[in-house]
């Protein structure tokens, strides 16, 4: 059996769809500031909006986009023509979040903050996965729609998409700065800057202790460039996932930068899928009737 024919747990990809979309929906509904913040702060259009001369639309239009996005995501979550509504969700998220990210964009650069990219990447990937639509939620419970089994290549594609964000960050650090990024002084400088601006006590420890700074610099690059691909290896993936959580939590403590939501949250949907499968198996084994 080739890689593209190998099967995994039958409905894993569908369960991933439901959990990932649930996380995105909860995050969007708890953060309605995404709708009105672009209209209370200065914004600079993102590059692709400028390229197509897309001007900032009205706040009323933004609310329509927001509710349309919530609606299409909800239908995808339920399993009603998931691939179609995931496609609509991807386009709507691209537009809606592109509008919001204009507030974080400097007029002097093309780049924007990268916390939301994983959501868009995973929505677009899910649109293309054949077994994403296997299960739908009905008033009587979960119902199987097709006999398509989840395939190994679908799972690997999801995991490689998650890995790409970390690999990209690590690769670019090395491409721009080489091994100097790992000399300990760079991380110290980032922490010093944070301490001088905000008196962050955790950042202070990294400034004071050079050896700690050096070790964490190496661990950061090793995790981002190499270890993250351990997500593809079943006996390593839980260790790597926990390491990524610790990594993001440390960034949150020292740099006051939150990658836990929505970025890490949607990455974690895969692991919650595995937990759900284990729970279902446990229940089936203990309640054979």
């Amino acid at each position, binding site marked *: 059996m*080739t890689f*593209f*024919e190998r099967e995994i747990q039958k409905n894993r990809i569908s369960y991933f769809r439901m959990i990932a979309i649930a996380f995105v929906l909860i995050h969007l509904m708890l953060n309605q500031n995404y709708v009105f913040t672009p209209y209370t702060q200065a914004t600079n259009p*993102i*590059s*692709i909006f400028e390229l197509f001369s897309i001007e900032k639309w009205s706040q009323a239009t933004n609310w329509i986009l927001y509710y349309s996005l919530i609606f299409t995501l909800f239908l995808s979550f339920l399993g009603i023509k998931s691939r179609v509504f995931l496609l609509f969700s991807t386009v709507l998220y*691209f537009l809606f*979040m*592109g509008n919001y*990210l204009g507030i974080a964009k*400097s007029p*002097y*650069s*093309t*780049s*924007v*903050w*990268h916390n939301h*990219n994983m959501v*868009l*990447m995973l929505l677009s*990937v899910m649109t*293309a*996965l*054949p077994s994403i639509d296997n299960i739908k939620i009905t008033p009587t419970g979960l119902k199987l729609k097709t006999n398509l089994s989840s*395939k190994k*290549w679908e799972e690997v*594609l999801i995991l*490689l*998409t998650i890995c*790409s964000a970390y*690999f*990209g*960050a690590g*690769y*670019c*650090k090395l*491409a*721009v*700065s*080489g091994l*100097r*990024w790992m*000399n300990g*002084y*760079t991380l*110290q*400088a*980032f922490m*010093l*800057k944070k*301490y*001088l*601006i*905000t*008196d962050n006590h955790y950042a*202070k420890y990294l*400034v*004071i202790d050079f050896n700690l700074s050096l070790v964490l610099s190496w661990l950061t690059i090793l995790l981002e460039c190499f270890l993250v691909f351990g997500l593809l290896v079943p006996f390593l993936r839980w260790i790597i996932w926990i390491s990524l959580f610790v990594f993001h939590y440390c960034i949150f403590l020292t740099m*006051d930068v939150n990658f836990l939501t929505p970025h890490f949250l949607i990455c974690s949907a895969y692991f919650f899928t595995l937990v759900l499968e284990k729970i279902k198996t446990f229940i089936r084994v203990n309640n054979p009737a």
Partner: protein
Amino acid sequence: MRHCQNQNSLYTSNVSNKVTFFSFILVFYGSIFLRVEYWPFTDWGVFTYAYNPEDTAVFDLRLLSQSRNSREKFLEKIGFSAVGFNSQISRAFYSHNEVEIDKILNSIRSSKSFKSFVKNCPCKVQLIRKSLDRVEKNQIYEHKEVIRTYDIF
């Protein structure tokens, strides 16, 4: 005939799956190697540059008043982001754009929150540049350089 049709359909499905898989990998990883930095691709430029703590400096506003203790980091108390302030002033300072520095400081000084904070309280507001002086006995000692001073009456 049906067997052939099934084989063809399986073949087409396999080819389509391969195209899907490799297309996404090409787009996501290709954007990394090509350093595509705009939405919907990610901002690879953040935190990539190597720095040295001895070359690191930040900008802050300091309030000096006879009736109050001298106060740094009061930007957040008047509703401004210290991180954003530092970012804007740094850009203007290192590009020698005095006009832009004045514009940023005037916008803060003319804000309602600032006027309310310094109400009836003669004071001075100073734009200071802070950098590392030394680390000694688990303490960080800062070097402060006054860039601008404004008298508030």
